[in-house]
């Protein structure tokens, strides 16, 4: 034991003196001690490595510690997002309906004589040979077969063909059985806007029985004449899209695009009654 303290003590003492000397010299020279510089240089990579490792461990610990809380928070946020998305959707629907009703109000102001009922589209007919849909209003709401159906913008959609108590069937303009007395807004000529089976799949109509010496203008707006008493006058049917000659090459007919977008139709308005214009005036 005495031997150990003798040899080891001397070594330790020498080392201590050396360190103190080196430190003292460093201090006297006014900089960091050479020993600490050496230590810093030698340990800095290890420091870095350990530092980053500890930081990562801290992250993992923090993550694990907060995981449950984050999970709950995440679930709550997801629920909130879903709720907000739902609210946005509802508000969009309400906005759309509001817009439709606002436009309808303008139409109502322009045509105070129209007695209208709003109706929602239930389903489309599955027949490839006709173009018709069902609405959620029927005779209970005062609707009758032969009533005219329009959009909030006053675009002609079709006519009620069958009327149940709670629902009705509307035949659209495109149906091959549809025919409306029409007038060109600019050209002033009259014609018949009729559904055509070949054009039905393209979503177009045919303009036939053109008034003699009449000239169709492409892009001209086609309106209802009001003759016949089924459709009120001045409703927009569509625009002239093309001019063609029949198979014989003698008779000209027009192709027109309907103003109403049937594919996106959701709500329509049934005109239950209106004041007929006096032709004598």
């Amino acid at each position, binding site marked *: 034991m005495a031997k150990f303290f003798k040899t080891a003590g001397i070594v330790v003492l020498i080392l201590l003196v050396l360190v103190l000397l080196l430190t003292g010299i460093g201090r006297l020279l006014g900089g960091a001690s050479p020993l600490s510089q050496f230590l810093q240089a030698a340990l800095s990579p290890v420091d870095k490595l350990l530092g980053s490792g500890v930081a990562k461990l801290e992250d993992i610990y923090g993550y694990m510690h907060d995981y449950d809380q984050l999970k709950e928070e995440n679930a709550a946020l997801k629920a909130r997002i879903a709720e907000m998305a739902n609210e946005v959707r509802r508000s969009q629907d309400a906005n759309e309906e509001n817009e439709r009703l606002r436009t309808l109000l303008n139409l109502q102001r322009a045509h105070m004589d129209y007695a209208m009922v709003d109706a929602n589209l239930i*389903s489309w007919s*599955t027949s490839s040979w006709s173009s*018709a849909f069902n609405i959620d209003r029927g005779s209970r709401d005062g609707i009758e077969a032969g009533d005219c159906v329009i959009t909030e913008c006053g675009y002609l959609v079709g006519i009620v063909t069958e009327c149940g108590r709670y629902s009705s069937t509307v035949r659209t303009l495109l149906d091959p059985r549809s025919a409306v007395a029409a007038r060109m807004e600019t050209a002033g000529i009259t014609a018949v806007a009729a559904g055509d089976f070949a054009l039905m799949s393209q979503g177009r109509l045919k303009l036939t029985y053109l008034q003699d010496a009449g000239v169709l203008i492409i892009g001209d707006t086609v309106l209802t004449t009001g003759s016949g008493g089924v459709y009120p006058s001045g409703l927009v049917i569509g625009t002239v899209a093309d001019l063609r000659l029949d198979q014989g090459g003698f008779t000209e007919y027009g192709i027109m695009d309907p103003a109403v977008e049937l594919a996106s139709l959701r709500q329509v308005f049934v005109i239950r009654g209106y004041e007929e214009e006096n032709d004598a005036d």
Partner: protein
Amino acid sequence: MRTEILRSALRTALILLVFYLLQVILLARFRIWGVVPLCFPLLAVAAGLFGGGIWGGCIGLFAGIICDSSLGDSVLLFTVLLTVMGFFSGFLGEFIMARGFPSFLLLGLIGLILCTGIQAVLFSMLIPTPWRVLLLAALKQLLITLPFFIPAYLSVRWALRPIRAARRKTTF
């Protein structure tokens, strides 16, 4: 046997409902080439082939009623047509043809051609239309219905499996 009949009937009702919703909600709204597939004749034919004449006739009757109501322009035509088709496919399946997919394909095609042809003829009687236009529309309808042969076959076979199994048991 009663339980099997009830199970098959319930399954068939479910299939009719699914096909009705598919046709009314989806296919009628998103028309391809401007036409809508005609699936109900396939259900009637499959029902006759797998369930026999009575099942074919009954399911054909209900399928026809649904078909007429969804088409809107054919009062009772399909109710009568599909009942007869279901019954006759049952007769053919029982005595003449094998009860497999090839027979169903053949009978289904015949049934569809018959239905589409009658629709085209009735339409041309109502509105004179060039026969080429009618033929093209009929062909489109036929083509667009072809993919529905497989779901119709599989679903009706599944629906009528309980009564077929029960029949096999009583036969042996």
